[in-house]
């Protein structure tokens, strides 16, 4: 039972890493295509980011600097837990600064700061199949991808417009990659979709429970699906971040009391902190300083 306590570098054995790297290479070669891989049980539950963790474990080296975010924040419990996992099993340096990280594992957000060449963004993906809620069968959806038969998706978006006057998808908004595969960007808000387009960073997507890996290589076209008369648009917030005053960033609503009081603050905690350190102050930030 002594074996229980000792692990290979980054937890996974080297054979498994090779298998996952092969899947990643194939995914990079066919942007947006979901490559089946033999997902392993990880020491955290399915749904907690096992796909992302396996991808990160397969690509991380001793000199990498890892950042982990969940909902844009470095300090949400699961981000803390995954960061601690890699600090333990790979003994790598970790950071909360987007600019310092070589690998960023994320759940549901893309950092506000523009990613640079050489950085890798690893997404945790719950349901990799963008067509899954239109067609539950894997055997069918694989055929649809093979035949590039995406009419069903357009019908869904059209029905949204007919019913609600707009496309009612706000996150996990489907994109077309390099003019070929329709891809689920993972449940990031559609606000982040434009950041994927021709990003300098390599974007890898891991879905552990669903046994799929896919990728968007640097400088790849990623176009959100839309119609000529209903062009894709991102969310706009009416007020800037209450703490750092940032505009054009994704905001979280924080409830302040039970009388409807609330404020909006940056979802990207690192971005917010860096701005405040640089002297930017928002509405509530000022009041806080005054108190």
């Amino acid at each position, binding site marked *: 039972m002594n*074996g229980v306590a000792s692990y290979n570098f980054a937890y996974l054995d080297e054979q498994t890493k090779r298998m996952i790297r092969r899947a990643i290479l194939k995914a990079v070669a066919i942007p947006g295509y979901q490559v089946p891989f033999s997902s392993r049980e990880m020491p955290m539950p399915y749904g907690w980011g096992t796909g992302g963790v396996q991808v990160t474990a397969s690509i991380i080296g001793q000199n990498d600097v890892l950042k982990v975010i969940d909902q844009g924040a470095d300090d949400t419990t699961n981000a803390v837990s995954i960061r601690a996992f890699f600090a333990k099993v790979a003994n790598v340096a970790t950071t909360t600064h987007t600019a310092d990280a070589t690998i960023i594992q994320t759940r549901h957000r893309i950092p506000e700061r523009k990613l640079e060449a050489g950085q890798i963004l690893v997404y945790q993906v719950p349901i990799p199949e963008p067509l899954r809620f239109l067609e539950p069968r894997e055997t069918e959806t694989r055929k649809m991808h093979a035949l590039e038969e995406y009419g069903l998706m357009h019908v869904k978006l059209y029905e949204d417009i007919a019913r609600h006057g*707009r496309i009612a998808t706000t996150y996990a908004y489907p994109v077309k990659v390099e003019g070929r595969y329709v891809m689920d960007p993972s449940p990031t808000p559609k606000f982040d979709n434009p950041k994927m387009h021709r990003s300098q960073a390599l974007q890898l997507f891991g879905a552990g429970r669903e046994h799929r890996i896919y990728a968007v290589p640097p400088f790849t076209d990623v176009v959100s699906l839309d119609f000529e008369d209903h062009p894709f648009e991102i969310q706009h917030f009416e007020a800037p971040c209450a703490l750092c005053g940032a505009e054009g960033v994704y905001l979280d609503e924080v409830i302040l009391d039970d009388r409807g009081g609330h404020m909006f603050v940056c979802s990207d905690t690192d971005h917010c902190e860096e701005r405040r350190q640089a002297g930017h102050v928002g509405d509530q930030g000022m009041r806080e300083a005054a108190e």
Partner: protein
Amino acid sequence: MYVAVKGGEAAIANAHRLLADRRRGDRSVPALRLDQIVEQLGLAVDRAMGEGSLYDRELAALAILQARGDLIEAIFLVRAYRTTLPRFGYSEPIDTGTMRIERRVSATFKDLPSGQMLGPTFDYTHRLLDPSIVGEDAEAPVLREADAVQALRVTDLLGRQGLMEPDGETDPHRPVGDLTREPLDFPLDRDLRLQALARGDEGFLLALGYSTQRGYGRTHPFVGEIRIGEVDVEFDITELGFAVSLGRIRVTECQMVNQFKGSAKVPPQFTRGYGLVFGQAERKAMSMSLVDRALRAKEFGEDVVAPAQDEEFVISHSDNVQATGFVEHLKLPHYVDFQAELDLIRRMRAEHDGIQEAAE
């Protein structure tokens, strides 16, 4: 003033300390030992081994202890350990025909060669709570040595008369399917399907098996035979050129005999559903064989109309470690996506109010 989930690290550490404390419970009560769990909660251990796909009673007991008796959590612990083990190869197929039988019953014949043996079963016990077992230390009864009889399987008895579909032919050189090493690709071959069912959730398979009995994909089943006992596991070592025994494992095997009318190509004969599970796990083995038979619908040209006959549906949802992970992950923060939905619904309501006002 903005304190949302700051200090996650300390919170996690404290939660884990509290969990460890709750697991141990009242310190004036003696701590459980693994051998107590192995010996006295044997069927829980068997379930953790079976669905954890790792035959090790002591590790399964440790998992149950660590999981505070939550069996799905224990199964998860076993799986997460199992996946780190090196894979040396695949054993020879076990031969349940040479099983050292402890229990063997057939519902299709009153008596049969080598007889029926009830073994350690709950069947025919009266389910009356029995306070006398608490803290008891009754003397162990004298056990008869298990006969090393070669009890022919009921399906083989019927097979000799041509009334039973034969075992399928398998190429012995065909690589062994392994769902823990290759991603599933539907439709599956039966070996992979049986593998998935063998580690599938007992409750899920029980409910699906039950549904076939109630008419959702009826298969007219009879228990041809259930047998529980120990079999040898042999491993072919290429350097030696012959198979050596690695030891013995206890398994439960269920062969369900099902009606089949026959077709233009096949004369009328009985068909089979198969269940094989680590340890003593009769409910699971029976459920598995019902579902296995239901999933063979296409093979026999039956209409696929019920959930239990739908391979992709059954196999995609039978794994309780996957299922519990995805269901329970809903408690992780989702506030970014929720914010997006909140924003949309506010806009739509504002528009709606505008239309209402314009109408008035």
